Every structure is written in C-alpha cells, then in structure tokens.
C-alpha cells in the first residue's frame, strides 16, 4: 500500500539523520556532541530524576500560561480586526511588521518591567504566539465567502445563529492553523527567555549544561523538547487536516 511505502521512506530518511548524527559525533568527539546511543542512555537515567521534573514543570507552567494568553489575545484581536474592516486594514501591516521583527530585541524591556520572574517569560512567550493567531484568525474571517452570509439571510437565521452555525464553522480550519503556529512560536519564546535569563526551566538546563561542559545533558534535553514539539505539532496537524478535508 502507498501509505506503508511512504512511511518506510520517511523512516529511511529518519535513519539517515541518525546516521549523520553518529558520523558528526565521531568527527567532533564526546565533549562536543555525544552520539545517539549515549544520549538515549543518559535520557533514560535523567528523565526520572527530581531535577528534570522540577525544570520540566517550570517550563510547562510558563508555556501553559503563555499559550492561554497568546490564544485569548490572538483570537480576540483577530476576530475584532476581521469583523471591523477598518481596524483590520489599519492594523494588518503593523501586525506583520511585529511578526517579522526579531522580538528578542524587545526582551530587555520585558526584563526591565518584570525582572527575572515567570511573568516575564510568560509575557515574552505570548508576544511570539499572539501574532500568528491574530493574523490567521483575521484572515479566516475576511475569507468567509460572501455567499455564506447571503445564504444565512435567505435562510432567515438570527444574528446569533449566523455566527454560531455559519461563521464559526467556516473559519475553524484556518483558525486552527493559526493556533498550531502559535503553539510552536510560544514555545520558542518561552525557551528563548529561559536560555537567556532564568534559573529554572529546560531552556536554562541546556545553556547551563553547555557552560558546565555536560554535553550529554545538553543534547538530551534538546531531544526531549524536540520530541515534544514534533508530537504536539503532529497532533494539531491531524486535527487541521481532518477539518481541511472537507473544505
């Protein structure tokens, strides 16, 4: 079957990447980059420890709050700018500029306001996630075919019914797309914040491990985050594809 063939092909590519990792390891040595197997062994020992749990929890909490903030703000701004045409026209280039701006340039301001607290990291993460959610939600609303709105009127739906049964379902696929991108960017923002100025969290662990020349820990934590991001994205993609299949 085609599906199995494709899965095998993808696994082959994955295997090639692991081999490349191993090759790179032989090239640069243990202190710089441990190979896949030692990394896995370290992971098995490290994951159950309290130290890992504490730091993973710190990141998870920051990320969770940042995500809620991104989604809530992003959806609100997106809906407003999508429905209120003038605001959308005025605000879109501003949002796009902010989106392409290296937001790390604004991080010192966040730090000055919030200090080294969790709120700072949450804010920074949210700064990253808000924009794609807002922009894609706005677009989703703008792209609702006019004929849907006309149909709602000919079917004599009330305003509430129109929003709930026509507008909402029509925008869901694109909004979910925005939420998926927002997820990835919020995670990135939180980790960046932890890498620069934190005493806890997985981002901190990576930088800390590098500075203490603990290569195994450094790579292991990176792998954990990598797997987390990939799995979460895959799940959101599945949801997105299920919705897009119909549209």
């Amino acid at each position, binding site marked *: 079957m085609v599906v199995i063939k494709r899965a095998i092909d993808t696994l082959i590519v994955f295997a090639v990447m692991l081999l490349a990792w191993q090759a790179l390891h032989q090239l640069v040595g243990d202190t710089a980059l441990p190979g896949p197997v030692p990394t896995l062994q370290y992971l098995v020992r490290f994951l159950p420890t309290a130290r890992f749990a504490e730091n993973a929890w710190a990141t998870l909490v920051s990320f969770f709050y940042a995500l809620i903030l991104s989604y809530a703000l992003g959806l609100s701004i997106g809906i407003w700018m999508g429905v209120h045409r003038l605001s959308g026209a005025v605000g*879109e280039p501003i949002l796009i500029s902010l989106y392409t*701006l290296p937001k*790390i*340039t604004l991080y010192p301001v966040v730090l000055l306001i919030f200090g080294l607290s969790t709120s700072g990291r949450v804010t920074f993460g949210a700064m990253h996630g808000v924009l794609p959610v807002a*922009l894609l939600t706005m677009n989703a609303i703008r792209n609702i075919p006019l004929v849907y709105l006309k149909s709602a009127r000919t079917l004599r739906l009330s305003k509430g019914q129109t929003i709930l049964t026509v507008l909402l379902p029509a925008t869901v696929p694109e909004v979910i797309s925005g939420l998926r991108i927002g997820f*990835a960017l919020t995670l990135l923002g939180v*980790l960046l914040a932890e*890498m620069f100025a934190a005493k806890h969290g997985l*981002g901190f662990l990576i930088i800390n491990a590098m500075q203490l020349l603990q290569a195994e820990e450094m790579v292991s934590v990176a792998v954990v*985050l990598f797997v987390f991001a990939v799995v979460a994205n895959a799940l959101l993609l599945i949801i997105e594809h299920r919705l897009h299949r119909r549209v």
Partner: protein
Amino acid sequence: MSRVGWIRLAVIGTAIGLLEISCRLGLIDHRVVIAPSEMVDALVQLLISGQANDQIARTFGIVTAAVLISIVLGFALGVVIHALPRLREALDPFFATYYAVPIFIFYPVMIAIFGLSAIPILLMGVATALVAMIIGTLNGLDRIPRILTKVARVHQMGKLSTALRLKLPAAAPHLFTGVKLAVSYSFIAVIASEFILAPAGLGRIISDAYTDFDNRRMYALMLLLIVVATLVNMTLHTLDQRWAARRGLVKSWS
C-alpha cells in the same frame, strides 16, 4: 497616501506620543523605559561616535552571509528535491514539522562543536532560513504551468533557454516569498543567537548594555534594530504583494 495609511500613521504617532509624554511626566520609570526622543538622540550620538560600528557591521555581515547561503543552497536543494518525487514525499513530514521545533535548543550544541565564534551564529541563521527557501522553491516549481513546456517546444527553445526565460519567471513570485522569509528568519536567528551567547555583534552589545544598566545605549541599539528590520521586511513584503497582485495571485499575509 490612502485614508487607511493616514489613520495608521496617526495610530502609530499617537502611541509614540503617549509614550513620550508618559516618560517625560515621570509616569514611566526612567530606569525601565526612556523617552522615544531620548532613544533617537542616543542612537544618533552612538552612530556619530562610531563606537558600535564594528559590531553593527559584523552582525549585518553574518546576516547577509546567512541569507545568501540559504537562498543559493535552498534553491539548489529545492530544484533537486523537486526532480525526485519519491524523496520529496519522504521529506514532506520533516518540512511540515520543521518550523514547529524551537530550533534554538540546538544552538548550545553548535557552540559546543564549533566554539564560541561567528560560525554557530551563521549556522543558526542558515538552519532557520534554509527550509523556508526550499519550500518556496518547491512551491514555485510546482506552480509552473505545464503548458509552458509545450509552448517552449513550439518555439524550438532548448532546455536551458526554457528554464531561464520561461520557468524561472513563472516560478518567481513563490521563489521571492522564499527569499523574503529567508531574510526575515536569518535576521531573527542571528540576533537571537548573539543575544543569548556570542563573542560580539549587535545582539551581544544589546545584552551587555542591559546587564550594565546602560539604558541609553540599550535603547539606542534596539531602536536601530527595529528600524532596520522593519524597513527591510516591509520593503520585501510590499514588493512580494505587488508582484503577486500583478500576476493575479492571491497571497496571504505570509
């Protein structure tokens, strides 16, 4: 300028104005944010004194290098992958997931391998921008109308001529989107890397200014970055939209 443009200008102007007034009136702590006019002043002084010129040149140099490498390599890889459908299908999940991974988690690994120099920073820039260019190339090549090859044969055009005079222009809008993203991603990656940990560069001196409590210098450099990044990205974005519109392509914000 259109009515919308004026309103936008007014909104931005009002925001900056409010910030200015709040700072001057002492509503905002001077140690947290300085007034916009002071930022401009600090930047002008800094540029005149030439103190930061080395760092600025270094950073923009690395960004430029990252962009060029990403564009050339990304285009080449895109062409190759496009020609091998089976490879493309196998790589598809990776491309779909690539930007979901917070790529900076590998920056310390790069430093461990290559040492604390410009190389890991350049690599981060390329790693972030490369796949966007590959995807843009693949999209562009996909959208070359098949009919063009037939037209080329009717006009007795050779393979190279067809590629340069028909296929490339046909693919150009999407290729340009790849370029646009490559530029903006390289910029973000290089600055962020320099900020986290670097021997030198614009990101580094901003973070130094922060740790040294030198707000004037910090905000001056931040302003420089914001202005340059905004100008470059908005120019590319506008060009992208305009060229797409000329072709009748509907382009979304990205």
